[in-house]
């Protein structure tokens, strides 16, 4: 399909979409007024709107719609309006507005500008009543529906406004040129319509009859007339009736009738229908081109805005990622520092415990040596004693005191051993706690490392294992020392008993 045809079809679809939405709104309004709701009818009307919307979206996306278009049901591509027949399909709402229908009674004078033939058809007589356009007197009653204006884009509105200004300028020039010969005030005075040499067949302009305000407003569901399509344009086609157009055309209608357009007019209006059609096509293409440029500019602006938004989003995401990475690195560093501190504390405690145990063992060894020397001295005295025959009372007292002293020392040693055992248990307990702390610190470090997916240095494991081995060796050594001490104490105890018994 040609690009121009696609644009035209898109415009038709947009108009149809708006029309159907409004028709659906009218349907809802009617249900509200009658307080008679029909969900099925609403769903069908909605489906009609969605159908046009889908087709419009596909067209905008670049997909040519397959099958009969929804516009062909209401708007044929040729611009001719097919009157309703049994074979034609109409919206489910059943509404067929006067916008697309031929007026029923309709008188149409040259005072009222005709819409473009592509949108509306009129009877061949050229009659056009005030029902479908505001009368010249600008009276607008409840019976007269305001002519529906096609929803124009901003670019189209600008183009229409520009064109309107041009027409106003021409009209003003014509009015100035004809101001010398005032004539009767008729509708043919419109410079855009009047043509020299073309007889005026339309009746003189009179204000349209204004119906009573109490009359019911024309229903959009009114039966569609079956007037024939026009064979030839009844009057010179005019632009779509915009409010500005009406406002500017009305004063023109009061200009003198029989005054030809000034010779300085840019170009005469064509009378041949083909020329008229060609001019309309040219105007439509110009409008479409303007709209296309506006749409392109809008799309470009949208794309730039979207690109800027995406760039900002990416930058913010990157900054967030950097911050999270920094936090993870700080957590890893903190965990490693904790592990190092725990290791150092364990080392200090182990060394202190080892030193204390060694000091205590040295003290115990010195005492044991002293005891052994004392025992040897006592045994030497006992060996020397039988030679004298009778026991020396002084020596006996000395032995008794020594025995008492030895017993006291034994008791003190046992007490010290008990304390040493308790101290050893404490050391072991603290070592276990320190080991648990190290393990917890290692676990925290491992967890932090796994979170950041970075491999942590496994130095802590080797250090911990070495420390555990050293600690185990110290404990074993201490246990050996304690058992040796106990054996020595037991030996000295036995020897003391033997001495006591002897």
């Amino acid at each position: 399909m040609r690009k121009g045809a696609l644009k035209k079809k898109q415009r038709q679809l947009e108009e149809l979409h708006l029309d159907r939405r409004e028709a659906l709104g009218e349907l809802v309004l009617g249900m509200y007024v009658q307080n008679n709701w029909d969900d099925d009818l609403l769903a069908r009307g909605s489906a009609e709107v969605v159908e046009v919307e889908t087709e419009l979206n596909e067209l905008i996306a670049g997909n040519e719609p397959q099958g009969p278009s929804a516009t062909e049901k209401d708007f044929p591509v040729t611009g001719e309006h097919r009157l309703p027949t049994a074979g034609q399909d109409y919206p489910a709402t059943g509404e067929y507005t006067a916008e697309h229908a031929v007026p029923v009674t309709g008188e149409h004078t040259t005072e009222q500008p005709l819409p473009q033939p592509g949108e509306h058809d009129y009877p061949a007589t050229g009659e056009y009543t005030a029902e479908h356009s505001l009368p010249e007197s600008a009276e607008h009653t409840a019976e007269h529906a305001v002519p529906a204006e096609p929803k124009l884009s901003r670019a189209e509105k600008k183009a229409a406004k520009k064109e309107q200004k041009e027409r106003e300028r021409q009209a003003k020039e014509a009015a100035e040129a004809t101001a010398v010969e005032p004539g009767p005030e008729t509708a043919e005075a419109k410079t855009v319509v009047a043509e020299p040499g073309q007889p005026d067949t339309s009746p003189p302009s009179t204000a349209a009859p204004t119906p009573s305000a109490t009359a019911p407003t024309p229903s959009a569901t009114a039966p569609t007339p079956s007037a024939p399509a026009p064979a030839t344009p009844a009057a010179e086609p005019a632009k779509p009736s915009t409010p500005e157009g009406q406002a500017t055309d009305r004063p023109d209608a009061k200009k003198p009738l029989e005054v030809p357009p000034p010779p300085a007019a840019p170009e005469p209006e064509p009378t041949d229908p083909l020329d008229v059609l060609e001019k309309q096509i040219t105007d439509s293409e110009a409008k479409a081109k303007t709209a296309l440029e506006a749409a392109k500019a809008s799309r470009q602006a949208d794309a730039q805005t979207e690109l800027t938004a995406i760039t900002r989003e990416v930058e913010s995401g990157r900054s967030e990622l950097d911050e999270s990475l920094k936090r993870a690195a700080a957590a890893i560093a903190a965990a490693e520092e904790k592990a190092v501190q725990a290791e150092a504390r364990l080392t200090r405690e182990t060394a202190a415990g080892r030193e204390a145990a060694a000091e205590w063992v040295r003290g115990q060894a010195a005492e044991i040596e002293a005891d052994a020397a004392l025992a040897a001295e006592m045994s030497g005295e006992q060996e020397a004693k039988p030679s004298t025959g009778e026991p020396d009372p002084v020596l006996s007292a000395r032995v008794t005191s020594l025995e008492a002293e030895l017993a006291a020392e034994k008791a003190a040693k046992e007490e010290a051993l008990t304390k040493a055992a308790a101290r050893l248990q404490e050391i072991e307990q603290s070592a276990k706690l320190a080991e648990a702390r190290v393990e917890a610190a290692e676990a925290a470090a491992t967890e932090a490392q796994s979170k950041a997916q970075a491999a942590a240095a496994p130095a802590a494991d080797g250090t911990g294992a070495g420390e555990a081995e050293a600690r185990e060796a110290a404990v074993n050594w201490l246990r050996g020392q304690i058992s040796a001490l106990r054996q020595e104490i037991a030996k000295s105890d036995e020897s003391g008993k033997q001495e006591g018994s002897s």
Partner: protein
Amino acid sequence: MALFSRGGQTGRERRAMQDHLGELDDMRRSNLSDLGQMTVEMAAQGNFNRQRLSEQAAEVVKIDREADLIARGLEEGLTLQELEDLARGGDGSGSPAR
């Protein structure tokens, strides 16, 4: 049914009424379009909220009433003051607008 003399209405008032009538028509079309769009959205959800539809339809009815009033004012040549009285139900026959 000339309750008031047509001569009471000035040209400025008449133009103002015509402009306002055009605005009301634009507003009516816009509201009807919104109402249709709302109905389409409700149909897509499979549930018609009649309260919301009624609220929107009531807006359109208000616009219609006001447009009828303005049209009557134009037809009978009422001044703005007379139209205001009429809107407040002074005539006793018309429905109050807004």
